[in-house]
């Protein structure tokens, strides 16, 4: 087969046509959408569709109804229009939670990615007991977050905890890691990075493993430095995995309830309260279902927007 014919075949393949020909000619007759075959196919998938609707669409629709009513956990309540959304959006506590959610997510995504990427690059090299290190580094991700949160609480909560003692010994005085609002925010963010970096390490490790090493060798022969390799080779070649990991971690961070709730409960004085914690507290502690679900819906809208933006980046990388 000549080069031209190969290229032609590939074009045909990309356009969905078989290599061997143009395939079946277009049907001149109008298609019967509800042919017996289609009806059978539809009937076959109908139970699955119903199941998906019951499991996914129904709760979402019901939650949508709850967000425009003034009910509680038992009764649906009366229709109040968009009053719940208005109440939420004019509540300073919501915006405080939104700001911290943004910070928590940015630090969680980029902090864990940077750490995960760095460790993935390190673990590409042969080091003694590399396998053991990989397993140990996965522990923060594998261990249940309840256990992790309890451990971190033990590590920082009281003046007799190890880190406050260390800080005191280093001359920082008595450091209140969870009682000081700013330090509590920093502690929660670091905790999030700590439990999330193994996931990023796995994602980026897999992405790096798929990169052809010959490309690096060729670049080194051409005199590329380590920084140049990272900037012009590694990052672009792993961009698709990076964007996907960012999408996933953004969703993980925004929806992360236990990390914050178990460590600080959203305190002190709402300093570490994220939107998902606020939604939980509104529904299950204040028994105000409408505003709580409204918060959850607003979160979902923001998450969808962010995910779409990042997904477009993934598609762009595909095209490039």
């Amino acid at each position, binding site marked *: 087969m000549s080069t031209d014919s190969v290229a032609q075949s590939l074009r045909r393949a990309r356009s969905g046509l078989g290599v061997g020909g143009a395939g079946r000619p277009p049907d001149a007759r109008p298609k019967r959408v509800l042919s017996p075959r289609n009806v059978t196919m539809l009937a076959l998938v109908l139970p699955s569709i119903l199941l998906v609707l019951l499991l996914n669409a129904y709760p979402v629709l019901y939650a949508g109804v709850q967000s425009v009513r003034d009910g509680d956990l038992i009764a649906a309540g009366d229709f109040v229009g968009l009053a719940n959304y208005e109440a939420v959006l004019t509540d300073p506590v919501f915006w405080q939670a939104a700001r911290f959610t943004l910070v928590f997510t940015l630090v969680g995504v980029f902090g864990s990615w940077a750490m995960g990427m760095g460790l993935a690059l390190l673990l590409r090299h042969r080091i003694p007991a590399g396998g053991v290190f990989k397993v140990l580094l996965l522990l923060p991700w594998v261990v249940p977050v309840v256990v992790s949160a309890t451990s971190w609480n033990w590590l920082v909560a*009281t*003046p007799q905890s190890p880190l406050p003692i260390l800080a005191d010994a280093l001359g920082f005085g008595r450091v209140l890691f969870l009682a000081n609002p700013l330090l509590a925010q920093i502690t929660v963010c670091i905790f999030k990075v700590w439990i999330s970096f193994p996931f990023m390490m796995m994602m980026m490790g897999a992405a790096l493993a798929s990169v052809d090493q010959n490309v690096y060798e060729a670049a080194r022969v051409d005199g590329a430095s380590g920084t140049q390799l990272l900037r012009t080779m590694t990052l672009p070649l792993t961009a698709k995995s990076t964007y996907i990991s960012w999408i996933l971690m953004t969703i993980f961070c925004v929806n992360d309830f236990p990390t914050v709730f178990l460590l600080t409960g959203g*305190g002190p004085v709402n300093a570490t309260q994220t939107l998902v914690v606020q939604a939980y507290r509104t529904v299950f502690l204040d028994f105000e279902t409408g505003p709580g679900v409204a918060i959850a819906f607003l979160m979902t809208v923001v998450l969808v927007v962010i995910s779409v933006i990042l997904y477009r980046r993934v598609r762009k990388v595909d095209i490039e």
Partner: protein
Amino acid sequence: MSMRASKAALSRRGFLGVAGGTAAAGALAACSGGGSGGGGGGGDTLKFWNMPWGGTEFNPRDKEITEAYAPEGDLPAAVYQEIQWANFTQTFSSAVASNTGPAVSSGGGTQAFLFESQGKIAYADDLLESWKSNGLYDDFLPGLIDAMKVEGGYAAVPYNLDMRVMWYNTTLLDQAGVEPPTDWPSYLEVSEALKGIGVYSFGVGAGSGSFTGSHIMTSFMINNGGGLFNADQEPDCVTDANIEAMEFVLEMVAKGYVDPGSVTYTSDNVQTQWKDRRFGMGWDGAGLAANVGGDVAAELTVNSPLVGPHGDQGALYFPNNIMMYTNTPSQEGSEAFLTYYYQNMAPLWTEHTGIGLPPLRSIAETPEFQSDANAVKIIEEWQPISRTWGAPGSDALFLGVTDVDGTPAMGTFTQTILSGAATAEEALTTLQQALEG
């Protein structure tokens, strides 16, 4: 289409129709949530849901008592179910909403009032009336039954008492060379002495899942003749009595008598501080000594209630209760079971299963209970002066107290005071606005 193909297609459709219909019926049945199986008895039996009120031995013993119930005639037998505290609100709410909940249960202290407002509670008026003839009614400690009364009737029956009292470490007070305080000024003096030996005197926690801090703030208000609700059962936080009480706590904070970490201490953190003898005095439930354990437990003693600056005494307490639901296989059965249960529940206290204080005099007077000096002191000195969330306007509980019982508004208020982040009036005004909102 050929006849063969047509028949085959019909056969498939027929099969799919039957299968789809069966699946849909199953799904709809699953979603309906009602039906006979949903009755609070699950058919011929009566569901009793109880919480882990004590140690590991509590629920097995409680189950034994429940299963020993032999109903008369056609009345339903009782089946026992332990419900964990984790997410208990969701557990009960979803079960009650879907009519798959219990016929009788304990639960959160204000739970009965929430469900009563939804029409899900069977009033205990007839039951309590029947107890007047068998001696049970008069056996309750003073004021307990009245705390259960709402407009429609008695929403529940008092079960165990969760008190908030003042504890001190005898060894640390001896070390500081001071006697236990009797009023607010002497509390400040003792605190100063304890500070001199590096010990905190206002031991509480207001962190994740720890509501004791907010209980103690309210206790101080009640100790000063104040509280959160007026006689109309409406929030009334910004009062002179409350401001004065919170200014006292803020003074304790400013003078360094309160552990700065208290703002985010969990219950475990608080117990650690008692264990490490960092807390010389503090506020907690009746089970503090047992929960702390070890050598320190023997050093922990309940103090007498403090006298406020205007001669008031008072504290917050929670008359935990047992409620009956309208969703029951037999209301007569629910009442018969509860009568049996109250007549036979004494071992839960006499065998020291760790449950809170008893609601009945007959149990409090047993030699086994009297052997615990701290518990006796709480029953004799704290219970008579304690008030519910409804104070100062009311002794009864009502739906409005669910706005302050473990809610974010109270948590934020408590953390604001314990961190000294606002004046008493500012913090109380913010709380008032949150409760009105």
